[in-house]
């Protein structure tokens, strides 16, 4: 608790004259001094978050000797690497869409759908747990369920004669990974979209109905326009969530699927490529996509908070 102790030592002297006084020169000094209390935090974030990230940024514009080059970025467009981006984007978009839609429908059912009230708090609690049930244990759960010897695979075979793996399904490729990711995407969607749905006022619907609107008209003209920013924001968050995921895919496929995170991981461990600067460029591409996601997310959040207080 060094930061606390430091602040307590510095606190009383500054607290002798509480309250901000704009324009007063001493107050100005005091206000800039009070920013000093945040220094330990920013220092830590700088050393262990910003600096490492920027060093990747720098590395992706350097060649093996440290000279400036754009070759790494050009190499991102090599077919194998381009393909890993395409696969990652496909998995992220598919699971964001699947998880987003199902999560939205469930959230709708428990908020506005007329279900008994206790179900809502049960589902909220459960979503909190399930959205954190990810990584290695989740991969194992899906192997036990849908792997070649998985309980559901065997059940479908013995009960209905359906051979999932003969029908082209494979847990360790695109659809298997997508189904697995969807497991944490659904509860995350429920947690994110629930407040927006609760902000939908009953009065809007009543007003629309009093003016003679049908249910469809209400949704097209009022419901969807109000919810759209929140829905898109949630979609983008889910997309980024899947895009950055590593542990689940690693444990599920043993690192054999062509995702950007898996390629980066292999690069760090020195298994493939043997070209660190290309690894930095891979990471840079990822940071750019994630940054775009978070910017779009904040902007949409602002739009949606106009309605949802």
């Amino acid at each position, binding site marked *: 608790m060094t930061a606390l102790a430091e*602040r307590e030592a510095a606190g009383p002297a500054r607290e002798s004259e*509480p309250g901000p006084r704009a324009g007063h020169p001493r107050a100005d000094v005091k206000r800039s001094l009070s920013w000093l209390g945040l220094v330990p935090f920013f220092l830590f974030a700088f050393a262990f978050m910003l600096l490492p*990230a920027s060093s990747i940024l720098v590395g992706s514009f350097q060649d093996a000797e440290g000279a400036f080059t754009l070759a790494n970025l050009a190499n991102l467009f090599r077919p194998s690497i381009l393909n890993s981006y395409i696969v990652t984007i496909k998995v992220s978009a598919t699971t964001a869409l699947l998880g987003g839609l199902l999560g939205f429908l469930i959230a709708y059912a428990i908020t506005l759908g007329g279900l008994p009230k206790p179900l809502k708090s049960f589902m909220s609690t459960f979503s909190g*747990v399930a959205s954190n049930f990810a990584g290695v244990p989740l991969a194992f759960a899906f192997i036990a369920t849908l792997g070649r010897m998985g309980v559901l695979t065997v059940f479908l075979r013995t009960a209905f004669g359906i051979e999932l793996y003969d029908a082209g399904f494979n847990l360790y490729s695109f659809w298997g990974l997508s189904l697995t990711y969807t*497991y944490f995407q659904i509860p995350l969607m429920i947690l994110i979209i629930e407040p927006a749905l609760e902000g939908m006022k009953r009065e809007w619907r009543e007003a629309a109905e009093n003016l003679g609107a049908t249910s469809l008209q209400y949704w097209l003209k009022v419901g969807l326009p109000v919810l759209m920013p929140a829905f898109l924001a949630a979609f983008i968050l889910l997309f980024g969530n899947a895009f*950055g995921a590593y542990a689940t895919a690693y444990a599920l496929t043993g690192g054999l699927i062509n995702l950007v995170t898996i390629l*980066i991981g292999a690069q760090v461990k020195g298994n493939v490529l043997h070209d660190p600067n290309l690894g930095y460029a891979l990471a840079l591409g990822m940071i750019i996509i994630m940054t775009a996601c978070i910017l779009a997310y904040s902007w949409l959040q602002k739009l949606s908070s106009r309605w949802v207080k």
Partner: protein
Amino acid sequence: MKRKTGLSWLWLLLGIAYFFIPLAATFLFSLRGKKGVFSFVAYANVFADPLFLKTFGFSLRMAILTVAAGLALIVPTTIWLHLKVPKARPVVEIFTLLPFVIPPIILAYGLIRLYAKPPIALVQSPVLLVAGYVIISFPYIYRSVDAGLRAMDLRGLTEAAQSLGAGWLALMLRVVLPNLRTALLSATFLTLAIVIGELTLANLLAWPAFGPYMAQMGRNRAYEPAALSIISFGLTWGAIGLIQALTRSGRDKASGIGAGAH
């Protein structure tokens, strides 16, 4: 509205099926350790493996260090933010979003590149692992503490305590921290749950932690991984269920949101 309820039940049941079928299947699978009968052999094997206790103990120690360091860094910062520099809040909030832009895999990569060789060679030291974990858990801790501070009238309490003659130490220990108890507990449990099973950082920084141990198990064994999965889910359930029970009255909707361990 009546006709809609049927559809609502359908979506709810679909969701519950998606949640529970893999769990039930994993549990059944974990009981298959002995041919022909259901047994807890896989669980016995897991607990009998000395590496299980060793790696779990290591991850637990790292998680406790992470909680200690994370709270020491973020609690004073957030209180300071609320009392003294509310203007700085948007800046700090951007920092709470950054671990999302820089996912664990990138963080690990950057930490290795930066701290692998002199002048600062930290890769061999658990300090770097814990520092990385603090960054990963930072949004969760910040949100819990921030929500806890918003829920109480910090300024009013501070003024009341000070007009009664309390110094800063008394104010913190006897007024602010007791009021933050729920928020601190929920931050602690969430961080424990995330760090103990974490794979990415531990794997890339090459530590003998619980996450890499589980992944290794997945390659070598058939039924033990399912047992590990159930044990791990039980721990997450326990930790987060406890938070939800604690914060039920405070309606802290932020506590469960996140993507730390994916």
